[in-house]
């Protein structure tokens, strides 16, 4: 079945120049494999569409049950150049939590 990412993960996002970073963290470590399987860099890039002009990179932190995504050319130039209200991408983590992921029933059982 499909569930929004927010059911199993939380997130925090910020900036490095014109690159937004989004950390996605599983609430329970046993759900980290779902993140690792479903949250590919390509799917995250597709999810954000026009918002991300450059590539998306993904890094794994299994010790924290977390993934770190770098969204390049995602902040309208970044820093002081950007004309966006969210020039630092502070709200993009919350946006990503609406992405739907495919999970098996058995994976959500306690």
């Amino acid at each position, binding site marked *: 079945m499909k569930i929004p990412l927010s059911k199993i993960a*939380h*997130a*925090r996002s*910020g*900036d*490095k*120049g*014109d690159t937004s*970073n989004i*950390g996605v*963290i599983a*609430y329970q470590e046993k759900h980290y494999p779902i993140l690792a399987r479903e949250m590919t860099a390509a799917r995250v890039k597709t*999810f*954000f*569409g*026009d*918002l991300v002009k450059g590539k998306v990179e993904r*890094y*794994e*932190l*299994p*010790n*924290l*049950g*977390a993934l*770190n995504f*770098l969204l390049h050319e995602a902040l*309208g*130039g970044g*820093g*002081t*150049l950007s*004309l*966006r*209200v*969210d020039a630092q991408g*502070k*709200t*993009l*983590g*919350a*946006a990503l*939590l*609406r992405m739907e992921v495919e999970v098996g029933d058995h994976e959500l059982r306690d």
Partner: protein
Amino acid sequence: MIRIANGQGFWGDWLEAPVRLIEQGPIDYLILDYLAEVTMSILQKQKQADPQLGYARDFPLLMARIAKRLRERNVKVIANAGGVNPVACAREVRRLAPDLRVAVVLGDDVFDRIDNFIAAGHAMKSLDTGEPLSSIRDRILSANAYIGAFPLAEALATAADVVVAGRCTDTALALAPMIQRFGWKGTDWNLLAAGTIAGHIVECGAQCTGGNCQVDWQSIPDLANIGYPIIEAEPDGTFCITKHSGTGGRVNADTVKEQLLYELGDPKNYITPDCVADFTSIRLKDSGPNRVRVSGIQGQPRTDSLKLSIAYSDGWKAIGTLVYSAPQAFEKAKAADGIVRERLRQLGLSFDEIYTEYFGINACHGPVAVPCPEPPEVQLRIGVRGQDRQAVDRFTREMIPLVLNGPPTATGFGDGRPPVREVVAYWPALAPRELIETHVEVIE
């Protein structure tokens, strides 16, 4: 064990936080992070206007406010409040709080050495675009090297009550007292990485103690009295993150994880002047109420370069807004945007960028925002950016006329024409480590 508390995550953070850290429980060191990339250029302009300025002016006032407590409790302060004029900052601290012994770390400011560096063959290419620094030479506003924790530790060793630095890394503020008190060496890579990661966790102040936390945020107690973070550091590189008892907020593995991921790049290669820290080695454990134990951290040798923080002038920008009410608020705002763009086109004005957002529709989340079919109101927000100041200024006169000559129900123009602001852009680059020499001065 030593307690290192961070009372300021950026210049503009909560003024009460450092005072409460001193008053509400035991700490040994109070660190204060004042500098963002763009802050340095603002301070450089202030210094050009007045040679006695160019530092975080809140800082000497804070020192005066808490000087007595600092002395009573033997708490040492480490702050990068010096900006581009650390000596003037330290003198002002001495003037307002004469009982405090103040040491300054110098050598990060390379604004006057840029031409020498270029002449010596250092291109200082932008890490973003690869262009050499010479391409923007005449527009540079400030230039500083990020310096690490060892010069700060050297300053602490002078028995100073207050250490004032310019552009040191945020993490160095926390690592420096560990180096000084525990005798860590420049090649203790795992220990230096541990202190660096401790610094990363607390560098944004309350963002690791329940601030800006997405996990069940409505249940986080008493954000009005949120406690700022404290590192309880051990000589073996393990540490706990906590806050004073009785304060608001929350510290647990969730809040610490969120901050660990904040502004992170490649987690295996977190590069600072002191070491390369590996975030995939971190072990976290909830170990009591509002207490997280951190262990297992590994690091690698430092790199041969230091990062430069260079600010330069890159044109002008302005942002204008108008509010449209229902019905058809979004349609009216879109029509108004089209009218502004057509009028700018007819004036023959060109910009590097014109960017439109609709508050209430898509300003934060862009194309992935949740649709809102009939919003009660929408704010139109048009931004322009360009090299021609007059063109940007002309744009600021094109918003308000729409109240009378555009789509109906426009309001929210009470602040008049928006200001034209200089764009100060950031040029990240690398320079060989040996170019940067730091030294410590005690200000009498």
